[in-house]
């Protein structure tokens, strides 16, 4: 697409798309905030938050073929999966662990996303395991193309695999092996590292002796990009470049998006033990939702009125989701026993 080289890919985003992106950031934020309240009220045992990561995630979703391309997310990807089609109700059901919950039938903790109909792969807790698996998804795409099982411009089929993780998780051997395979086989693969400078309490310099995760791309012969993860359009540009590389057979990209986890690691954490309030306050000035709102206001895409409408709509949706999830039935105890093996007919 030579037309794009002159201008930033984000410049081609329609107003409609920009508003949608804003909406998903807002909806995710309000859902997330509600979960914290529910946890404080003792209604749910656990919550882990995407607050501060919304810009990165919504941009990632919009840069790919949402709901078609394979996405293998991590626990902090609430905005990402919502932008792909997971609803506040789905999420609330998982917070409570109610019968038939979308991702796992309430077998997994919340934020272990997964939705077959959206090509969101079911996630686990051990970090970085998704990276070489996502390389395997990308390998499958390349395989299907090479074997004539899929045609290169069939946009109804997945044409890339995107996976996400935190910067701390790149310390795992799993990450190395996944990146390496992606490089060796030149796979349609994007690894999006959401660098929020902490892995629970351990700061970046406790994880690696380089200052940017993107520096590590060189070890794998893949393309590396580092980007401001609080800036929707900057992340969109980076991710779009990565997606275009994948679609056109140019291979894998490692994208580092630098942002901040504005909450404790999870509802089990107390971040006051390891980072200063000043630091947190400083980063709050870069709240991605506020930044994007300002930008869209400035560009006349958003208006005060629209903001209020969106807020009201988000509140209504979150209220409704919570109420319905609260009222939903619990799983039967014996549901613990199902789905150990897929039946042979499914082969």
């Amino acid at each position, binding site marked *: 697409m030579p037309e794009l080289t002159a201008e930033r890919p984000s410049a081609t985003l329609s107003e409609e798309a920009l508003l949608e992106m804003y909406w998903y950031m807002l909806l995710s934020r309000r859902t997330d905030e509600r979960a914290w309240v529910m946890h404080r009220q003792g209604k749910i045992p656990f919550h882990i938050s995407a607050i501060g990561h919304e810009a990165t995630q919504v941009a990632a979703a919009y840069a790919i073929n949402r709901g078609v391309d*394979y996405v*293998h997310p991590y626990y902090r990807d609430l905005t990402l999966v919502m932008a792909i089609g997971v609803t506040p109700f789905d999420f609330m059901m998982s917070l409570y662990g109610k019968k*038939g*919950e979308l*991702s*796992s*039938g309430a*077998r*997994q903790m919340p934020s*272990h996303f*997964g*939705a*077959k109909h959206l090509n969101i*792969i*079911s996630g*686990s807790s*051990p970090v970085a*395991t998704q*990276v*070489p*698996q*996502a*390389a*395997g*998804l*990308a*390998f*499958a*795409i390349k*395989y*299907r193309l*090479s*074997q004539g*099982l899929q045609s290169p411009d069939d946009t109804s089929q*997945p044409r890339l*695999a995107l996976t996400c993780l935190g910067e701390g998780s790149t310390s795992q*051997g*799993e990450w190395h*092996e*996944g990146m*390496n*395979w992606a490089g*060796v086989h030149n796979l349609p693969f994007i690894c999006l590292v959401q660098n929020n400078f902490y892995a629970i309490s351990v700061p970046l310099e406790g994880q690696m002796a380089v200052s940017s995760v993107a520096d590590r791309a060189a070890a794998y012969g893949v393309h590396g990009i580092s980007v401001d993860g609080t800036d929707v359009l900057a992340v969109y540009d980076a991710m779009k470049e990565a997606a275009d590389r994948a679609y056109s057979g140019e291979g894998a990209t490692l994208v580092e998006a630098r942002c901040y986890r504005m909450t404790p690691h999870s509802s089990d954490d107390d971040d006051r033990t390891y980072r200063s309030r000043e630091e947190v306050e400083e980063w709050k000035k870069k709240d991605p939702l506020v930044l994007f709102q300002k930008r869209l206001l400035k560009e006349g895409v958003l208006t005060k009125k629209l903001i209020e409408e969106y807020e009201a709509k988000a509140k209504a949706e979150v209220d409704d989701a919570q109420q319905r999830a609260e009222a939903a039935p619990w799983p039967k105890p014996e549901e613990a026993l*199902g*789905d*150990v*093996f*897929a*039946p*042979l007919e*499914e*082969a």
Partner: protein
Amino acid sequence: MAQMTLIQAITQAMDEELARDPRVFITGEDVGKRGGVFRATMGLIEKYGPERVVDSPLAELSIVAIGIGAALADLRPICEIQFADFIHPAFNQIANEAARFYYRSNGQWRVPMVIRSPYGGGISGALYHSQSVEAFFAHVPGLKVVIPSTPYDAKGLLKSAVRDPNPVLFFEPKKGYRAIKGDVPEEEYIVPIGPARIAREGEDISVFAYGMMAYYAEIAAEQVAQEGISAEVVDLRTLAPVDRDAIRNSVMKTGKALVVYEDNLTLGYGAEIAAIIADECFEYMDGPVKRLAGPDVPGVPFSHPMQDFFMPNPNKIADAIRDLVAY
């Protein structure tokens, strides 16, 4: 019927499955031009090309993880781990990931993949080229574990494994690769994963084994038959999920049970067989449940005298049969 070795049957199974289903591919170290260090994939890259017979980087966890990803995307990977001893780096991907996808996604995502690996001792391979690892995986719900002891079963079970919608660990007794020969039909067949095989019928004692030890148990049963002892040999074949009926039926008939495995004794696979019998066959037992296994040391030693000391063999099995029958 063609007479062939265990490894030839394995190669043939893969060849036929590659031909049958374009989604089937093979990956692992040296599986391409080299045809595998044991030659299990010999000739396949020439026939199916480097896209379907893929030399992997030297990295087991990603061999498995790539397989998982490809299986999620509806391909049918056959992943080779060069020696079972080197499967441990992939333990997380197998036990935490492959095994749990179906359950953790409420049946949305499944992982139809095969992990093949040669296992077992007696080939001067010492601590790191002799291991038996089946017990680790048979303990993990969500994994199927298969170990053949005849060419017929090897081919038929491997074809079933490739067609199974679940992750199947397929361990091959490497000492038997060329030592074990048998008839294999020309025509297409499969052996279902699940049922055990009564390798030899008998009345006095049940011997439970699999892989090389099943092969040895048959030899031992033949030895003691000369002395008038009628030993039933049950080749378990599928270790997980195990065929409880076959175990019960045999022990209810004979009243005596010997479990043979070459892995370390403690918590080796035979511990579960013994525990099942102790629970479900109590009223039929005419003696203790005995286990003949490798000693609890950290590996099969290299030097012959020590290796022989470690490994169960037909004579040791025959002795254990005699002792238990005499109980």
